[in-house]
């Protein structure tokens, strides 16, 4: 397999990297670029722990080859912080204890961002629908939904 040179913008930073064609976006981000907020859960596109936002769209990085994303912008959970300040969604998950083991949390946060960017004031049903592709095997969903509601509340009138 000949390596292919690709260019990405990851969390606002340009990256040039040569990668084998069979490398997934998940493994490239996690193991080559060391963004450990991109998690490997099921690796089948079911659980959402590998969620990233690719050119503005929420996707499962485990089902995408890194070479497919050549020339694209990628946002991982690491890109959501502003210096030392957590993003209001991250802060809400901390304040409301929206996690137990934490394995699903980064994916949950990106799905929440994807939801609130389009719908700043979602109902509980809309939240459940938006997070349907993210599994929490601790089954701590109640706290997660409360975190999303708290995030929506704290972001009212602000830009995300």
């Amino acid at each position: 397999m000949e390596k292919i040179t690709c260019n990405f913008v990851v969390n606002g930073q340009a990256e040039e990297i040569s990668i084998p064609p069979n490398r997934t976006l998940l493994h490239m981000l996690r193991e080559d670029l060391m963004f450990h907020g991109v998690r490997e859960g099921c690796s089948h596109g079911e659980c959402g722990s590998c969620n990233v936002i690719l050119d503005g769209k929420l996707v499962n990085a485990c089902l995408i080859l890194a070479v497919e994303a050549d020339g694209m912008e990628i946002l991982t959970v690491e890109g959501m912080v502003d210096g030392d300040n957590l993003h209001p969604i991250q802060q809400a998950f901390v304040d409301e204890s929206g996690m137990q083991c934490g394995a699903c949390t980064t994916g949950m946060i990106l799905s929440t961002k994807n939801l609130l960017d389009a719908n700043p004031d979602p109902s509980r049903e809309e939240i459940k629908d938006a997070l349907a592709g993210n599994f929490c095997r601790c089954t701590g969903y109640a706290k997660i939904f409360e975190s999303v509601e708290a995030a929506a509340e704290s972001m009212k009138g602000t830009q995300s």
Partner: protein
Amino acid sequence: MVVFYRRMPRFEYLKPQRFEDVLELLQNSTPNRYRVFAGGTDLMDQLKQRKINVPETVIDLKGITELDFINFDKSSGLRIGALTTVADVAKSPEIEEHYPALAQGAREIASIQIQNRATITGNICNAVSSADSAPPLLALGAEVVCANRNGERTIKIEDFFSGPGQTVLNPNELVKEITLPPPVDNSDSVYLKLAPRGRMDLAWIGVAVWAQISERIFNNVRIGLGAAAPTPIRTPNAEEALCGLDVVSENIEAAAAIASGEASPRENSFRAGSEYRHMMVEVLVKRVLTQLAG
């Protein structure tokens, strides 16, 4: 044998920019030389799990941007390009208005994350019997435009599926677009899915019906079933039985019973038994027709 399913096998990658170039590659290909993909949400998983023969090269179709379109015209109907994502179909106001069952089917597919990558064409090319886009496409009278290097042919969607995971596409052929006939006055369509969970689940049974009803009479009906047979199917006897009849519950119930008889679900399925699926076809066909009767 335990498969280490998280790791990809080895393959090369090509991303041609022109449709003709892909057809040319496929024309002189040998088995396992190439495998094309659009969204890749099924292919990448199948490759990890070694569920399919690993090709020497995967061909990414996303470079052929001209195949990513939704084109609606009141007189000629709807055209959906081979690269159009499930999310774009789910969100299209024109599809929502004129072909609602298809928008409903698209929204039932997996998660937002998958819908953002997966394509409607990929959903039918994988030819799983429970594919959520298939019953709506059957009910709405879709046709599949396929091409090889020498030309194009159009296949009715009911003739497209040839078995579980199998289509009538030749190895040198690709789907170019899916077309739907223009909207008809006094017609409407609905898709209902029965599954254990609200999202992220495969259908136990999926039913889509398109019906033209005027002056409380069924003028024309098409019924598409998912997960009710080895492939997605139409139920011609139930459709014929309804045509010309009054929109009353006895007629709806009779047609639902006929549709149930036309289903041929697998005997030994771990997701739902055959007898149960027969019963649920009857329930869902009745439910969808009642909803359309208003």
